[in-house]
């Protein structure tokens, strides 16, 4: 089993994701340069957080045209696991691997803080080690994390159990006050139709050691590892 972490110019959580997989999960992992067009040999590809191409024009808009994104599309079509974190989530939406888009936070400010998310789907390849309703403590750090989709798409996401995580308070209540950015229906993470592509705004790779304040992010990565082995 092998992970790949894609590096776009401007990615800045690539090294954190790499560290989480290699040093905490103790799994094999490579960096994949954005010019790469072949993902053979990988089982899970991570699109990390950061500011690919400076997030100029629109978050993720330019990165989606990198050669590697063609390969990611094929990889996903073949059923490979893809997870986009923060900027990675934005890129997956721009590339139409996930529905919807991420708008500027309704606070209009960058927000970096620990918060709580509730696990809505406990069978996916990314969350099956969690239980439904479990509250995870994972930080966010973004300026454009306000998830938006058309009402019919939202209905579809709900009906097909494709909402992975929702922002909530520490007791698991999904409230307006616990929504940090104005996301529709408090959505923090979603799945594609096939269930092999996930996107989330919170940073699980930042919550993998007690020393950092939480180990809840490990559940996400360990879910992937167990599903693949």
């Amino acid at each position, binding site marked *: 089993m092998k992970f790949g972490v894609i590096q776009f*110019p401007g990615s800045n959580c690539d090294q954190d994701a790499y560290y989480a997989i290699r040093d905490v999960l103790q799994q094999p992992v490579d960096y994949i340069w954005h010019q790469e067009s072949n993902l053979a040999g990988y089982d899970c590809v991570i699109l990390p957080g950061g500011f690919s191409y400076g997030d100029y024009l629109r978050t993720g808009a330019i990165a989606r045209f990198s050669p590697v994104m063609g390969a990611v599309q094929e990889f996903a079509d073949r059923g490979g696991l893809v997870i986009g974190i923060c900027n990675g989530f934005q890129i997956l939406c721009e590339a139409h691997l996930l529905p919807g888009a991420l708008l500027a936070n309704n606070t209009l400010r960058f927000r970096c803080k620990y918060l709580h998310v509730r696990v809505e789907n406990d069978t996916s390849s990314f969350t099956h080690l969690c239980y439904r309703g479990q509250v995870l403590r994972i930080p966010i*750090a973004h300026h454009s994390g306000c998830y938006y989709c058309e009402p019919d798409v939202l209905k579809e996401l709900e009906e097909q159990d494709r909402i992975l995580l929702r922002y909530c308070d520490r007791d698991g209540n999904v409230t307006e006050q616990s929504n940090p950015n104005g996301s529709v229906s408090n959505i923090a993470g979603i799945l594609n139709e096939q269930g092999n592509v996930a996107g989330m705004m919170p940073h699980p790779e*930042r919550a993998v050691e007690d020393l950092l304040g939480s180990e809840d992010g490990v559940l996400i990565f360990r879910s992937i590892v167990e599903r693949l082995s």
Partner: protein
Amino acid sequence: MSANREPGGRTVQATLPIPPEVYREMGLNDAEYQRVVEVLGRHPTYTELGMYAVMWSEHCGYKFSRPILKLFRKYREAIEGSGLENAGVIDIGDGFGIAMKMESHNHPSAVEPFQGAATGVGGILRDIFTMGARPIASMNSLRFGNLDDPRNRYLFEHVVGGIAFYGNCVGVPTVGGEVCFEECYSGNPLVNVLSVGLVRIDEIAFARACGPGNPVMLVGSRTGRDGIHGATFASVELGPDSESRRPNVQIGDPFTEKCLIEATLEALKTGYIVGIQDMGAAGITCSTCETAAKAGTGMRIDVRKVPLREEGMTPYEIMLSESQERMLAIVQKGHEDEVARIFTKWGLNASIIGEVTDDGLIHVYDGNELVAQVPAKSLAEEAPTYVLDTEEPEYLKRVQSYDLSSIPEPDDYNQALLKLLASPTIASKEWVYEQYDHMVQTNTVVLPGSDAAVIRIRGTKKAIALTTDCNGRYCYLDPYLGAQIAVAEAARNLACCGAKPLAVTDCLNFGNPEKPEVFWQFRRCVEGMAEACEFFEAPVVSGNVSFYNETPDAAIYPTPVVGMLGLIEDVQKRCTSAFKGEGDVIVLVSGWTAEDEASCDLNSLGGSEYLKAIHGLAVGKPPVLVMEKEKRVHRVVLRAIDQMLLNSAHDCSDGGLATTLAEGCIMGDVGAQISLVSNCGPAAALFAETQSRIVVSLPAEKLGKLREIAEDEQVEITVLGRTHGDKLEIAVNDEPVINVKIMDLKEAWCRSIPRTMED
């Protein structure tokens, strides 16, 4: 003129005298112009004049501050020895060093706060990675006028926004700092940014243009007209026409900077870069002459080979442009392509613009035409220095002798405490640091909001701690003592998280040094700081001076900001300032005896935030500091943290003991019952900013061990009370004076800044 002769026999054409109004406009005085003529043996060209004007400005040449800065031991040794590097490197063992520097971007931020602050962050980061160090954390120390003025709110909002814009994108966590508000910073905001980097000691890169014949490469962004004469701009007072100087402000591109960080670190790994320097103030002029001067070499460059962003730029403009995100690299001959390939891979320009020579001269060509030819050392190291007059300011005696006994006790101590907690200088800065990515790189183990930020060093058991401190009001009331307290408080903040001081970087912000009163403040501050840094074994390894922080109406308080680095040997043994649940004993570790503690002399309210926030006064003398007593307190707390005795440690500073206790409660979400003894009024017991005190909390059964350590260090400890319930209750001499719900304290402390800014 043999000095001006090229190997090929080419010389700069003898030129006519430059009219005085031209060189004065550039910032040179008559004597300095004459000095240029003497050095060159002729009149300078327009390009040469521009180069001297900018390199001999206070900003680049330290012409006023250098004689005083020699009071700092390391600076003196560096000037007299091997020369200054871009940032100091401190050995932390295990083969690692920490590069650290702080810099001001006050003037650009006053004119265009967003870009001014953003490019400040970019500049300080380049100072760090140009040494081969990966930037691992940034901090900032900000000062603004009162927030009731919309202009100050605008500056505050956009400075923070600019720091967030740049720092978040480059992926270096901004882990904390300080923000203070005083009327004197209205119109003169201070934006000081600090950055630290991690480097293997055997991989430090140097800013030296070694090896004649080696190609000189310009990497990074293209060059435009931005920021021309930004450096001289920073060396004059801001007047009403500062707004029209807007074109001087540079625009930052953090995306390019992020690529530049990765490319530079990757290129340095090849071993083919013999010298490298970032480009900040004075752009190509500064980087070419400084690297050549340090290596004792010269350089020949052609401005036509510089990739430009705009058409029709003159050699003068190219030499002085302060376009951001550029570096000058001196590459081993024959390996240009390998190095260039790395920069190209990251989408950056890498152009050879010249080569190193052995004649000590900077030769600037515009194609075939020689437009400047000047000795590198004369630009980089021979700026005229001045010993300015000093005079004790008149205001001092007046403010120091203010009769504090005339100040009445407050009617309601609860209201006074709430008001103090809501004072923006004391209030929670969450609104600020939530806008900064403070976790990227996943090494921040103590997040912003505690006394110091803590960053673990992977591959070791160690962590570093960082803090910035300065109380400008203290420095206004007594520059020497104020500067010493800044150092003592920084060391105290480090002790509270379990770190021993290692080194200091500073940002010395003052008014117009050509005024004897201002220069007196400057000298006294440096004297106090130099002495305290030696005492706390934290030498000043780098820093920056910013003068002319004044408008026609007013000068700022003398503000010598201390950025202090500390080391934690075992990252597991660290401490934060929040109380941790019910039933802990709350103890005051103080450098003073119980008798001192109760006395009125020691517990003077002079210079306190209480006097400022409640009575609108900046008067009295700052609190007494005895450095030996201070150090003993640090030793007690450090030993107690090392033995894992403490659940929290929080220093007493702005707002006094009551504020320290309230913050511990708010952050820990738990109440406290406290009993104090005082021989003067309760206000002094609650709000005096008496130095050398740390409030700790611990389980009762560990108190004996803490006592043993304290006795051993000859420090008295006093049990103040315990954590309990959901209220902060304080009695002075058994008389209840404070009784407030933590929820209400929290509302005052947490909501103050958001309420002001989101109104």
